[in-house]
């Protein structure tokens, strides 16, 4: 694949005229997708996808295009030549772009994330065997994800990451279920078995009569996967330079009025984690890490190429949304969480958050899957789903009681437009007085 991309880049470079510059970005995947319901296979298949994005530049005028690739010069070059000509035609009618920004001296390089994936038949057999008797529903996704960059100035970059992501739930009845995920680079069927055993244990709790809680404020523990949903809302425009400069950040109070989160909150974009390509689609190299929140105060923004040119800043991200977010650990031992919670809600998963008031970082969302009522330091019952509505500034500010010392590395199971390579590394959070409304 890498060889083909670079061959294609050379062939397209030969098509350029005069002082034209061409930037090429490649993205693709070879993915297995097996969907389960009721412990059986609902849909199974594979996707082979290769796409090329072209940015044709002359002086400060440019137009972009994107095409699916067949994988042979014979099929792809006629389509790409036609697209290049279209872009050339469009460019003639465009004014100069004041925010065009690409690197002319970026480093070439290659990264391959090493992995050990199982044979697909072995993986499916393991899933079916370990889930005997369970009402299992979910998806197995595995294979390689590719990204590449090439410019007519000579830069060449390539990134490959093979991974698996098995994301599933085990249902008791109705909406009472346990959510589990096993994702990574090296498959271990014993680890799958262990996680399935944990799910069976939690499912026994889900069989107890559920408790319906009344609207009001409750102490909660947000497990890392639930905290991820909250941070996704912070990330929705919260860390991008463009959204910050145009007043659209949900963290506008932190950026304009010095609002702070609890000093224990430290967030960074850890590009160096390595699942994502280390380069941007304009050829810029990403730094190892960008500090976003330090000791509860807003620090740096994520800056894409266009914003960097517009605001005179340095590019530090491919997009202005975290893709490798990290939260520093706290001091609360995971084994002490239930005791520290004492009486309240143990929330494993949140669902479908959105803003109630973006300016105040006030968000709403639902509990989902295995969330428990805890009383006197003991898990007593599953809860019926409940809506929360509260401010992130309260949740991670004045009402934050602590973050766990242990963290979880979570790989995004999302597959919109292709398998995601986003990930997070997060602790859990113990929070006082989270407001529940419905």
């Amino acid at each position: 694949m890498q060889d083909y991309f670079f061959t294609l880049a050379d062939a397209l470079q030969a098509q350029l005229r005069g002082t034209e510059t061409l930037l090429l970005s490649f993205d693709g995947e070879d993915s297995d997708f097996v969907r389960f319901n009721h412990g059986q296979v609902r849909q199974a298949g594979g996707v082979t996808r290769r796409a090329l994005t072209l940015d044709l530049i002359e002086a400060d005028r440019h137009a972009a295009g994107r095409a699916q690739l067949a994988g042979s010069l014979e099929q792809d070059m006629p389509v790409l030549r036609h697209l290049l000509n279209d872009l050339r035609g469009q460019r003639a009618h465009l004014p100069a772009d004041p925010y065009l920004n690409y690197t002319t001296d970026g480093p070439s390089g290659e990264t391959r994330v090493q992995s050990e994936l199982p044979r697909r038949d072995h993986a499916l057999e393991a899933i079916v065997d370990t889930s005997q008797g369970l009402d299992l529903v979910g998806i197995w996704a595995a294979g390689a994800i590719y990204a590449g960059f090439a410019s007519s100035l000579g830069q060449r970059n390539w990134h490959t990451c093979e991974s698996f992501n098995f994301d599933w739930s085990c249902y008791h009845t109705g909406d009472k279920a346990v959510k589990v995920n096993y994702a990574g680079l090296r498959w271990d069927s014993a680890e799958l078995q262990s996680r399935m055993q944990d799910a069976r244990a939690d499912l026994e709790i889900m069989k107890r009569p559920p408790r319906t809680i009344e609207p009001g404020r409750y102490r909660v523990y947000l497990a890392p996967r639930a905290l991820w949903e909250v941070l996704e809302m912070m990330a929705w425009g919260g860390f991008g330079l463009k959204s910050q400069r145009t007043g659209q950040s949900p963290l506008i109070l932190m950026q304009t009025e010095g609002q702070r989160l609890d000093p224990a909150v430290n967030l960074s974009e850890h590009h160096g984690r390595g699942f994502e390509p280390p380069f941007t689609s304009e050829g810029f190299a990403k730094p190892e890490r960008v500090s976003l929140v330090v000791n509860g105060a807003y620090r740096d923004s994520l800056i894409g190429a266009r914003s960097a040119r517009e605001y005179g800043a340095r590019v530090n991200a491919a997009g202005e949304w975290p893709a490798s977010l990290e939260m520093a650990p706290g001091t609360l031992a995971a084994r002490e969480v239930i005791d520290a919670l004492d009486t309240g809600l143990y929330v494993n998963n949140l669902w479908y958050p959105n803003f109630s008031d973006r300016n105040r970082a006030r968000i709403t969302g639902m509990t989902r899957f295995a969330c428990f009522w805890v009383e006197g330091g003991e898990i007593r019952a599953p809860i019926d789903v409940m809506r929360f509505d509260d401010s992130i500034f309260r949740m991670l500010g004045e009402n934050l009681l602590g973050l766990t010392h242990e963290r979880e590395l979570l790989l995004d199971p999302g597959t919109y437009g292709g398998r995601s390579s986003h990930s997070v590394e997060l602790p859990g959070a113990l929070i006082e007085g989270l407001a529940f409304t419905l």
Partner: protein
Amino acid sequence: MEPLLEQSAKRFAGRVPTVDFWSLRLVGEHKESLAVRQDVVQPPDTLVTRGAFITVIQAGGTGYAATSDLSVSGLLAAFERAREWALLTAPWSLLSTRDLTRCARTGGYETPVAEPWEGLSIEEKIGQLRTASRSLKIDDRIVDWWAWLVYRRIDTLLVSGCGAWIEQRFHIIDPGLKAVANMGSQTQVRTGGGARGARQGGLEQLKHLGFPDQGPRVAEEALMLLEAPECPEDRMDLLLMPSQMALQIHESIGHPLELDRILGDERNYAGTSFVTLDMFGHYRYGSTLLNVTFDPGCDGEAARYAFDDEGTPAERVHLIRNGLLQRPLGGASSQARTGLPGTASARACDWDRPPIDRMANLNIEPGQGSLAELVAGIERGVLMDTNRSWSIDDSRNKFQFGCELGRLIEDGELRGVVRNPNYRGISATFWRSLCAVGEQASFEVHGVTNCGKGEPNQMIHVGHASPPCVFRDVEVFGGGA
């Protein structure tokens, strides 16, 4: 139809090995995106996509393979991969192969277009966008402003080993305007001109969407919202404009009625449904004023088509009639699994995803009364316009939605603008509080361009048309910490 797709299908059909059943769905898309942000012309973006989705049924199993290699060898290689998947998973297959549709139909469809996209040059389109952009920047407090115009031409060709040959061509226009007003730490956003609601057709659709003429109003309302009071917190009547009805229909009627959710396929991701199979035919979903149709023929609506992606002919049917639940949203396979009647709504978002149960055009039929008459019937309430926030539980029951703009209604008259209007409720009871449905003249076509569900994930466009509607005694509230 793109000649390449037709050639690929014919060559493949002439060489494909014998199996119990095969189908080939070819998709070609040409998309152009133009935008002007803060009076700066953004680089135009052109997308050219071609790909194939092959399904094989063999020895009691079903498998698929998707590829963008449309050569005969590429398609045959994908066919082999699909067959391997069918054989591998046959022992664990949830569905009987009898439940899977085997299309043998022929037919076609093309979106009616009065004013083709190509009728305006790129210079003229950018000129319109620049004018629209300038019309949004009416004050220093407008800190970000956009005008955009997107066109999609999508060709699909479905062929099968049973003789199916269905060609469809869709033309979709997706424009929008956005103004962001800011003062200190208060920011308000207003959109219009068709934002988030694509339509089928050509450039003639722009005038139906208020593009580009709504620019000044969008900007003025964004400024107005900056200084408006918060929406009050109380239980009161709620008048939802069609731009918000689209979201209300989508989340709390459309998704709960999807058969694949009810059958449990979506429980790990998009969720389940409070609706169960035994409810169809007698469950009171809403007041007697509630009439909901699946209407794949509605003029200009985004999901107009003649066949779904499994080749089932599409026809208009009532899902809810006079408040009673009649039938679910579900394609041929889901209908076979349940024995229930459904809809031609097995749809795939692109060439690399399998068809699943989706919404298409899902509408609320008009009632009686002009907008003024609806307002006159409200003693104390809030009008809410244009969705901006959506959240609902995984059974599609407890919801909270927010809008860009609210207006108070007192003693049957519209009063001042309020900001951050939100409301919450429960689907199972909310629709029973429907007390007024606007007349045909107030009926508007909108839609949702980012409907997400499925594993692997799929995002697709759907249409929702509705008049404004009034709901009694709803919990409304505003923003603030």
